[in-house]
Every structure is written in structure tokens, then in C-alpha cells.
């Protein structure tokens, strides 16, 4: 259902989509039932001459049943939805599967920047690759991210992955994703972060192992480029410069 509107490109995207459909079916049924009941009653009991209103207190057992039985069924529905919600949540947010690669995601007014290990596969070494606005990842690889903010609260969101996590100044929040579909997807900031909020866009590029290896190679040549110029896309660079100008 969600995929009609937006690609699903991570392993857990489908579990969120399925939960969405489960909830839609359950609450959709009750919504239609309740709205239908209401309109039927309005039609059936519209004012007519010579038909007096009935005196009903709501204590009559045979009438109360019409409320209490649906109500018990709703409690069961709630439990079903909860079980689904907790299961999905647990798998996405509470467990950290063993990571193949760890990357660092840094939010600041108003750009996302990324730090990922170079050929040595270890973060915080001299060959780390730093980029702004673009994160290159390899398909079918489990990534752990360490999320930081340099200034205000941001939120790291990749709709195609169904991934969203706020970035807080002063702490490092870990999470994970495993892209399973090659392509380029949007990164959003979904927490109000100032006048450049709408400009705080990024791209996540999911590549085949060959393409990713080639990209890694491109970005580590010349070898040991510590203070390498970040790979800023022209559009991104313009908007950043504009933002910086506005900020004085």
C-alpha cells in the first residue's frame, strides 16, 4: 500500500508497510461500521409526526450489549495492533543486528554530513571518507549509524528506508539499516531546525558492490587524503552558501 506512493528500499520497510496495512484494515472496518451505524440511525429515527421518542436510559442490558460486545472486540483488535507495533518496533529500534559497516551521520544547520570508513573498514582512521549531502552505501549490507548533531535537534529520515531518528546535540544515537534495492533516495530532516530546514536535503546512493568499490577507490585516491574536500553537489553547495549568507 505504501509502496504505491514510495519505493521500499530497506529490509524493514516492508514490515512497517505490512503493519500499516494491518492497522488500516482493522480501523477501516470499525470506522465504516461506526459511521454506517450513525448515518443509519439518523435516517431511521428522523423526526416524524406521531412517532414519539423512546425513553431509554442506557442501563437496559439488552441495549447495552450493542455497546459492550463491540467494545470487547475492539480491545482484542487493540491487542493485535499492539503486538504488531511492538514487534516491528523491537526489530527496528531495539535490537542492533551485527553491523558490516559503521558510518557516522552528522546533522547541522543546514546539511547532513557523513563519515564512513575507507578501505581499512574502520571508522576514525586517516582514510575515512567524509562527504556532505550524499551517503554512498552498498546494497545488502547492514549499516550501523552513529547519529550526532552539532547544534539543534534534527531528524535523520530516509523515507524509502522507512527510517527516522532524531539527532540530539550532546548525544550519539545508534541505529541501523540494511538497504536492499539499488537506487538514489532522499534524505530529509524532519525536525524543525531553523530557516534552512527545507534545504536540509541529502541523497543516499545505494550501489552494487562493484559500483561501491569503484566509488571507494575514487574517493581514496590520492591515498590518505585526510582533509579531503567534501563531495558537495553543485545544487547543495549553492543552497548552503545562500543559507550561510542569510545567517550572516
Amino acid at each position, binding site marked *: 500500500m*505504501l509502496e504505491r*506512493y*514510495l519505493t521500499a528500499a530497506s529490509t524493514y520497510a516492508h*514490515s*512497517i508497510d505490512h503493519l500499516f496495512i494491518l*492497522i488500516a484494515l482493522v*480501523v477501516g472496518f*470499525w*470506522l465504516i461500521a*461506526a*459511521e454506517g*451505524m450513525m448515518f443509519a440511525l*439518523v435516517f431511521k*429515527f*428522523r423526526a*416524524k409526526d406521531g412517532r*414519539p*421518542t*423512546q*425513553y431509554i*436510559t*442506557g442501563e437496559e442490558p439488552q441495549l*447495552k450489549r450493542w*455497546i459492550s460486545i463491540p*467494545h470487547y472486540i*475492539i*480491545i482484542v483488535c*487493540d491487542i493485535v*495492533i*499492539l503486538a504488531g*507495533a*511492538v514487534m*516491528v*518496533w523491537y526489530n*527496528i*529500534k*531495539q535490537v542492533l543486528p551485527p553491523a558490516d559497516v559503521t558510518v557516522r551521520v552528522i546533522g547541522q*544547520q543546514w546539511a547532513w554530513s557523513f563519515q564512513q570508513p575507507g578501505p581499512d573498514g574502520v571508522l576514525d582512521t586517516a582514510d575515512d571518507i567524509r562527504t556532505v549531502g550524499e551517503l554512498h552505501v552498498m546494497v545488502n549490507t547492514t549499516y550501523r549509524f552513529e547519529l550526532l548533531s552539532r547544534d539543534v*535537534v534534527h*531528524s535523520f529520515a530516509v*523515507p524509502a528506508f*522507512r527510517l*527516522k*531518528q*532524531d539527532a*540530539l*546535540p550532546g548525544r550519539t*544515537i545508534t541505529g541501523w539499516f540494511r538497504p536492499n534495492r539499488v537506487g538514489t*533516495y*532522499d534524505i*530529509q530532516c*524532519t*525536525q524543525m531546525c*531553523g530557516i534552512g*530546514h*527545507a*534545504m536540509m*536535503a541529502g541523497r543516499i546512493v545505494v550501489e552494487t558492490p562493484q559500483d561501491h568499490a569503484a566509488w571507494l577507490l575514487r574517493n581514496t585516491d590520492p591515498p590518505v587524503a585526510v582533509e579531503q574536500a567534501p563531495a558537495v553537489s553543485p545544487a547543495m553547495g549553492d543552497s548552503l552558501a545562500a543559507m550561510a549568507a*542569510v*545567517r550572516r
Partner: protein
Amino acid sequence: MNAHVEHAEAEIFQKYFWSTDHKVIAMQYLFTGMAMALIGGFFAYVFRMQLGFPNQHVPGYGLVTPGRYNALVTMHGSIMIFWVAMPVLIAAFGNFLIPLMVGCDDMAFPRINRLSYQIFLLSALVLLSSFLVKGGPFGGAWTAYPPLSAVGSYNLTPIGATLWLVAVALEFVAFLLGGINFTVTTMNSRAPGMKMYDIPLVIWMIVLASVIFMASVGPLVAGAIMLLFDQTVSTGFFDPSRGGDPLLWQHLFWFFGHPEVYVVLLPAMGIVAEVLTVFARKKMFGYKTVLYTTWAVGFLSFVVWAHHQFVAGIDPRMANIFSVTTLLISVPVTEMVFLYIATLYGGSIHLDTPMLWALAFIAEFMIGGVTGIFLGSSGTDIYLHDTYFIIAHFHYTFVPIAIIAVFAGITFWYPKMFGRMLNETLGKIHFWGTVAAFNVIFIPLFITGTAGDQRRVYSYAQFAELSRPALQHLRTTSTIALLVMLSFQFVFLFNFFWSLRSGKPAGTNPWRSTTLEWTVPSPPPHGNFAVLPTVYRGPYEYGVPGRADDFFPQNVPD
């Protein structure tokens, strides 16, 4: 200038601006709230124009820059919640109805009541004054998360941010004073014979809303002062580099912010209960059960706040607990809505304008209710959090509350407030125009939210997935529907002011209702009751077997 004119001027001032009469104060709140609603509605028009027709000159405003856009959405949210929903639903209806419906001459503390309005007016003026200061009004969202709200170089509106905070804090003071009054008056000043279970539901709900408000607002007042210190005297309560914690604000804010939803919901439910029973000519189905579910909702509303923070960086295990409590609250709310629907059974339903609004409230609020399940479920909230899905969801709760139920209340009590009937044809035109357009505004936004549109963004140009024409068509549809909905409000304004002079005289009890406010002249004189009434029965005795009339007023002896 002779002394006589001066005296008359003093009298007008005394009567309309310095009065302690609960009805005058109610009107002050009502008209201030309506004026603020026009401002908040205008802001919605401006930023929806930017979203529907990006980067074009908005008629009556000009170009919407990112900074202005942020300020507009922040002010729209703040104004609609704090300066429209609360003053109209709680203060205007509470002040007008409580003494009239419990059968006393005025509020328990009339001068505190006057002070409450004055502080409220001051808070509104402080808020509006932020449009005049350097940098303009605050633009960091109505939730004002620090460090953005705390640091001027982050939000670029240092003065506006402080004025916003001061205005909100003053508004809380006004409603604390009002809440004390509502609670004490209802508990102590009831007419002889009016037992706890004889109190009309709308009064119960306004009182419970006041209690919830007073119990939840304390932490946020403290938080507001801490944030004010962070802004102005460089403390570091929410600054991590000095040992503070930005998440603390989020907890303080939402500990109030979620109960606040029920603070405005309950009076709306109460208004709908009154209208529903009168126009269905029916006793409320399970009066006591409605009351018990209200208490349950009120209690549960204190333990759900962190569902606003599932992905905010709280301990992920906490999300499970708050998912459970959040879905739990659906149990009493569903019960309440079912009882309202059941009240229609066996009635004799008259579809006058107030009843149309009341039925529309139930029909639309149910959509708001069920879409909340998607967001209360932690799993789906990961994706839907901060998208237009949640915007559509809470507008399906707040529009029924602050617009639809308010219109139900105004059209229902207008004859009592002003002694004249509203025009029924204009009322129905206004109703259908508003409700139909409302759905066309927000159903497209459920879809754009599901497709990934995030909130508080003035342009989607930077996002390849979101700048597709199909999504832009939906945004434009929503904007056009908003224009339609707003233009139908002029029908209401015309009807409201035209009927003040030219409406049909209402008489004492035009709707043939049972509660005490309908036993006094319209509009009620100062002091309300010529002889203070005695109450003999509950509020919803319609169709009592063996009586010639189909209604049995509360004050008529057996």
C-alpha cells in the same frame, strides 16, 4: 463635554471592559477568540498558498520566504490551540454556561474571572507584538524545542522567541485562574437539588478539562521559565554543553501537550452531548458511563505523552510502554463515541443547524480517532512521525473540536446569548460549505504524508521523491479547498452580525430544552435568575412516558 456623557462613557467601559459579569467575560473571550481565529486562519491561507502554488506572490501578503514560512506555521499552531480553542471552548462556553446551567447568579470569584480575561488579552497582545520586533515572530514550531528555541543565533528570532514564551506563560496564568473559578463554582454554587449526577455533561467536561489543565500545566510553566532563563540570562538547562538536556524540554512540553488535547476535546464533547440530546429529543444513553469514560480519558491522558517522542532519542524500550497506554486510551474514547451514537437510537431527530454540526463532529472526529492508531503504534510511527499524515490526523481531531463543535455550540446557544435566532438557511449553507471543504483539505494530505511529505517545509524542490507532479496536484487541491472553506466563513460572520439585530426573537426556550439556562430570559439579565431555581432531576429528560410535553425541565417539580 458635560458630566452626563462622561458618566455614560464610564458606564460603557464599566459594562463591557471592566465587568465581573460572567456573561460579559464570556463574550470578551468569545470575540477575542474569534478575532484570533481570523488571524490564525489568514496564516493558514498564506502558507497553504505557498505550498499549493510555490514561490508565487500571495495576494494580501506577498512572497513567502523560508523564515516567514516558519513563523507562519508556528504562529498558526500556537494561536489556534492557545488563543482560539482554549478561550472559546473552555473560557467562553465555560463562563457563559456554568452559572446558567448550575443555577447561580455568577462565578464564585468574579474579580478573579475578570483578571483571567485581562491577563489573557495581555498574552494575546504580547504574542501579536512579536510581529513588530526585529527578526519577526518566533519560527521554531509551536513545540519550541531547544536548543533551536533557546539560542538566538540558531533561530534568528531572539526577541520573537522570548515574546512567544512570555505570551504562552501568561496565557497559562489566565487559564489557571479561570480553571479555579470553573471548578469551585460547579462544586459549590449549584442550585439546591442539583446532585453530582444531575450536572449537565458540558459542565462536567469543562470542569474536568480545567482540572486536567491545572494538573498538567505546572511542569510546562516551570519549563517555560527555564527556557526563558536559557534565552535571556544564559543558563544551560537545555544546553548539553553545560550539562543540560534538550530532551527534558520535550518531556515537560508533552507532559502538558498531550493532556492539552483532552483539555480542548472534553468541552467539545460536552457541547455535542447537549446539542445531540436536544435535537434527538433523547435522554443521554448511559450518562454515568459517559462520565466514567471521561474520567478514564482524563487519567490516561497523563501517561501517554512520550508517544510524541518515539523517535526523539528516548530509550527505545520506553516506546513500548507508551504504545500500550496510547492504544489503551482508545478504549474509553471509543466507548464515549459509541454512547453518543447510541443516543440517536429511538430518538426523534431534527436536523437543525446545531444538530448538523454535532453529527458532523462525531463523523469527522472518528476519522481523527482511528488515524491516531497509526501514530500511537510505535512501529508505524517511525515512518509517519512528522509527516503530513500526522498533520491530517490532528486536524481531523482539532477541526472537529475547535471549529465544528464550536459552531455547534454557537448556533445552539446564540439565541440565549443574544436573544435572537440565527438564520437557518445561511446556517446550512455555512455548514455544508465548511464541512465538505474541510474533508477535501485534509484527505489529500493523508496521501502526501503517506508518500513522505515532511512537515514545516516551505518547499519540496530539494526532494526528488516529493517534487513529483502527482503530489503537487494533491497539495494544490488541498489549498484550493482551504480557500473554499475560508470563504464560507464570511457567510457565518454575516449571519452572526446580521442576526444580532434582524434575527427572529428567540424567546426563553426556543429548542424546548430541559436545562436551567433555558428557564431565564434571552439574553439573561445581570444576576441571571429572578428567583434562584431548585433542581428536581437530571439534565436529559426527554420523552418521559406519561407527560404531554416531550421534555421535562430540570426545575419543574413532579
